[in-house]
């Protein structure tokens, strides 16, 4: 029994404030995930670590809240006809392989360069990928917004048309979200990259969703909904792997889940009121803001590795808290846009219903 108490030091004591904090962060994260398919989770690992949860337990518990959340979100959005289960499963399985490989790379970097090295790698991956993909997604969303064509159907990109036109016998699968047959030789590397990113920065969706939209040609609404299936497959495999080593703190996972299920329902409902470009807008915006958050940390890790002059302790503290604050800000801005769009949609619908009723009476 005493041994067990020893093992429990991995798990922090929870008080009301900590529970409320996790519940709230979970709610906002869930809201964003329900809307763009993923992206709410990256803030949870640092949020847990900020209340004293060890890094690995935070990652493991985050993952164990993510897969049930994704499942609930996927079921909800499937009711709206937005989910392509087949595409989700095909990409999800290859993403699982990407997660394993990504984790392996992480371990080797940690062995060779220590914690600061692996942190630098994670931050650099964040910055490079978010800059390229996030910048592209945001630009595309703003272009649609400025052109005033926000009510038109999204156009399939040239790249996606080319991908759909390639016929490799024996590998072709029909996907309803694309309304076309695509070779799995295209979907496998996309899934793999999604998984690798998930293992590195905890949000595979930042590659998964844009690649489904721009490379395969899925509509934004379906891509973000299908990402939830991918997140479920990846998250369940990952959670099991961590649970094998006893790293999941089920209390943390379930408390975050308590908040995030309220959020994911709302985020999913929100998607029914918007056009595809809104998904891109929220996603691109969050990616670009988070990019700055991570970018701030790069000098910290570089100085720890001796790649540049050491920073004063005060500077490190300021950079760390600013970085965390920007991350929270990204989520809150995302959540605000989602709630506003939904609110406007609901009001417009009620107004219309009233008018219809009036006319009916007359």
């Amino acid at each position, binding site marked *: 029994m005493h041994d067990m108490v020893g093992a*429990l030091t991995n798990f922090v004591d929870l008080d009301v404030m900590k529970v409320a904090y996790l519940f709230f962060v979970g709610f906002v994260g869930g809201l964003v995930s329900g809307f763009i398919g993923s992206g709410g989770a990256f803030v949870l690992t640092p949020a847990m670590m900020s209340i004293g949860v060890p890094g690995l337990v935070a990652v493991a518990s985050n993952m164990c809240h993510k897969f049930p959340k994704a499942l*609930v979100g996927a079921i909800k959005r499937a009711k709206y006809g937005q989910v392509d289960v087949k595409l989700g499963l095909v990409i999800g399985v290859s993403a699982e392989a990407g997660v394993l490989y990504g984790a392996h790379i992480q371990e080797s970097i940690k062995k060779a360069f220590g914690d600061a090295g692996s942190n630098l790698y994670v931050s650099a991956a964040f910055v490079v990928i978010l800059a390229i993909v996030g910048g592209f997604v945001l630009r595309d969303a703003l272009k649609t917004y400025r052109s005033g064509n926000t009510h038109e159907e999204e156009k399939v990109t040239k790249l996606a048309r080319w991908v759909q036109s390639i016929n490799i016998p024996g590998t072709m699968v029909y996907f309803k979200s694309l309304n076309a047959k695509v070779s799995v030789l295209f979907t496998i590397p996309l899934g793999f990259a999604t998984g690798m990113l998930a293992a590195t920065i905890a949000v595979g969706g930042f590659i998964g969703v844009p690649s489904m939209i721009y490379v395969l040609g899925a509509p934004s609404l379906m891509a973000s909904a299908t990402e939830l299936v991918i997140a479920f497959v990846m998250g369940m495999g990952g*959670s099991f792997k961590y*649970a094998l080593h*006893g790293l*999941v703190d089920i209390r943390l996972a379930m408390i975050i889940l308590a908040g995030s*299920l309220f959020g994911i*329902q*709302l985020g999913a409902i929100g998607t029914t009121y918007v056009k595809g470009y809104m998904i891109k807008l929220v996603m691109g915006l969050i990616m670009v803001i988070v990019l700055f958050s991570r970018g701030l940390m790069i000098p910290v890790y570089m100085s720890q590795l001796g790649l540049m002059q050491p920073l004063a302790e005060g500077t490190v503290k300021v950079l760390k808290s600013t970085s965390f604050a920007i991350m929270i800000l990204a989520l809150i801005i995302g959540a605000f846009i989602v709630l506003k769009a939904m609110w406007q949609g609901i009001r417009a619908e009620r107004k219309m219903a009233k008018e219809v009723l009036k006319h009916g009476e007359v």
Partner: protein
Amino acid sequence: MAGIKKKPIGKMTITGVITIVLYASLLLNQDIINSYFGKGGVYAFLPIITAFIFSFFHGSFTSIFWTVLGVEAKKKKGVK
């Protein structure tokens, strides 16, 4: 408001109570639960199963919760 549809308050209460019971039993038995769930190996199934059970009841509760509050998906008008 048309007030034609009845709000599923009964359903919300049932799933809500089950959810509260689940969370209460998790938080009131933290020590025992952590000692088993943190063992690893075959015990790895415990957190996974727990996650499914919680998501089933709490997922239904949160869904009905927003419906009762009047926050619902857009009614389809033959779009897509």
